């Protein structure tokens, strides 16, 4: 318990150091697009792939498990749309990102720590936390809404594929379903959540990397810790945000 509190204190202090003004804005603006490319653009592929498949599977499952004549035929599209918007494209996608992006951030920063590159920055008088971590956090937060939007559309496209290529559901029923009783706020909700999730993934992973001590094994441990703990924290934040934004 005491250790957990200490960790939280260390984390808060690191964030204070991170969110100060950059020593050199030019370097920050040069770093930001690089990080956005590495953390955001390079994950588009996997997100597209997974979202399409999840769209296909969710559509098929919904149709197969709701063979009840009482339910309107458009319910499939509606269920798919709301599941994507409310949970899948923000929360589940973020868990996936925690695995990919989180381990990337933690191992990169952790390696810089154990090879003394972070000490080298500090010695030069550079605020290393700010220089290394801020572009990652901001970069990922800026990419998240784009990734979420992508994921929603790819999921819907996957469902649409089922309608086109099988006769489980007609296209018009599906299209009607995904438009029926659409609540735009759900989209806003998804985007707001994704900002928080982006922050959690980048900052928690950076924290574990930044305080790695030792060698390659410790960097590995830091990266595992980063993924596990940012995932847990994501779920906790998800509960809180759902309470605050929806209930």
């Amino acid at each position, binding site marked *: 318990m005491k250790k957990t509190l200490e960790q939280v204190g260390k984390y808060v202090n690191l964030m204070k150091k991170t969110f100060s003004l950059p020593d050199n804005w030019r370097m920050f603006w040069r770093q930001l697009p690089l990080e956005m490319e590495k953390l955001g653009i390079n994950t588009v592929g996997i997100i597209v792939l997974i979202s399409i498949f999840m769209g296909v599977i969710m559509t098929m499952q919904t149709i197969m498990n709701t063979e009840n004549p009482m339910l309107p035929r458009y319910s499939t599209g509606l269920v798919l749309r709301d599941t994507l918007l409310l949970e899948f494209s923000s929360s589940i996608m973020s868990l996936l990102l925690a695995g990919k992006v989180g381990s990337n951030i933690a191992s990169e920063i952790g390696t810089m720590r154990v*090879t003394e*590159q972070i000490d080298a920055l500090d010695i030069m*008088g550079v605020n290393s936390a700010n220089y290394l971590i801020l572009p990652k956090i901001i970069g990922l937060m800026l990419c998240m809404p784009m990734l979420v939007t992508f994921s929603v559309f790819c999921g819907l496209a996957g469902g649409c594929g089922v309608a086109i290529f099988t006769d489980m559901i007609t296209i018009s029923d599906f299209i009607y379903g995904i438009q029926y009783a659409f609540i735009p706020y759900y989209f806003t909700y998804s985007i707001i959540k994704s900002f928080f999730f982006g922050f959690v993934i980048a900052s928690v992973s950076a924290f574990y990397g930044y305080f790695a001590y030792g060698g390659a094994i410790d960097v590995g441990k830091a990266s595992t810790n980063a993924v596990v703990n940012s995932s847990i924290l994501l779920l906790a934040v998800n509960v809180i945000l759902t309470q605050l934004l929806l209930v």
Partner: protein
Amino acid sequence: MIEVQNISKSFDGKLVLDDISATFHSGKINQIIGQSGSGKTVLMKSIIGLFRVDSGKILYDGRNLREMRMKEIKELRKEVGMLFQGSALFDSQTVLANVMFPLKMFSPMSVAEMTERAEFCLTRVDLKPQAFNLFPSEISGGMQKRVAIARAISLNPRYLFCDEPNSGLDPVTSILIDRLIEEITQEFDITTIVNTHDMNSIMEIGANIILINKGKKAWEGSKDTIFSSDNEALNDFVFASELFKNVKKTQLKNNS
């Protein structure tokens, strides 16, 4: 000149530095020697302020590091260069970019001026222009050390710290790096502190030496007094091999 007075440092209750005092002079190589794990790196990083010491004073030409505010420390850092045990070059940047990095961060120079200064520093450490655009992983350990020295001197430091500059290098390259550090120190009148456990290096450039043993200062002297001292910790360190022990015995016999 850097003076440390009675500094102590512990990690999680384990005392690593125990009441150490020493003076490091400018224009001279000041060495901190001792066995692996004796606390050399911790002492060096404490002097620089990467580790916060538990007690004592650290004076940079009279300015007390522990009383400085964040802003003053940042200013001081611009006068400090450091060569790390593993070179610590930024592996995502080329050799030239590594040396230009401190300039980009802190100097008002134009890109052309920065490039010129970086090339001057790289040439000063005898690096060939062909290597300028390679990445750290593509050059040898000795070259990495040279690049790290070039980066450390790019902002004209008044204080230079070298943590085991010749670890992992062959004896010939080691001596070249040592001489280079000595030349630069004398040329620019820098206060240089070098950590080492390499006897060649101690005998070659050790003008002012302190020995750390289990976190305590055990001996102080220079390369000229190292052989004649009868300090036990020093002799255990210097004459670790049987061969050297015998040399020492005969020398003492001859003297008496």
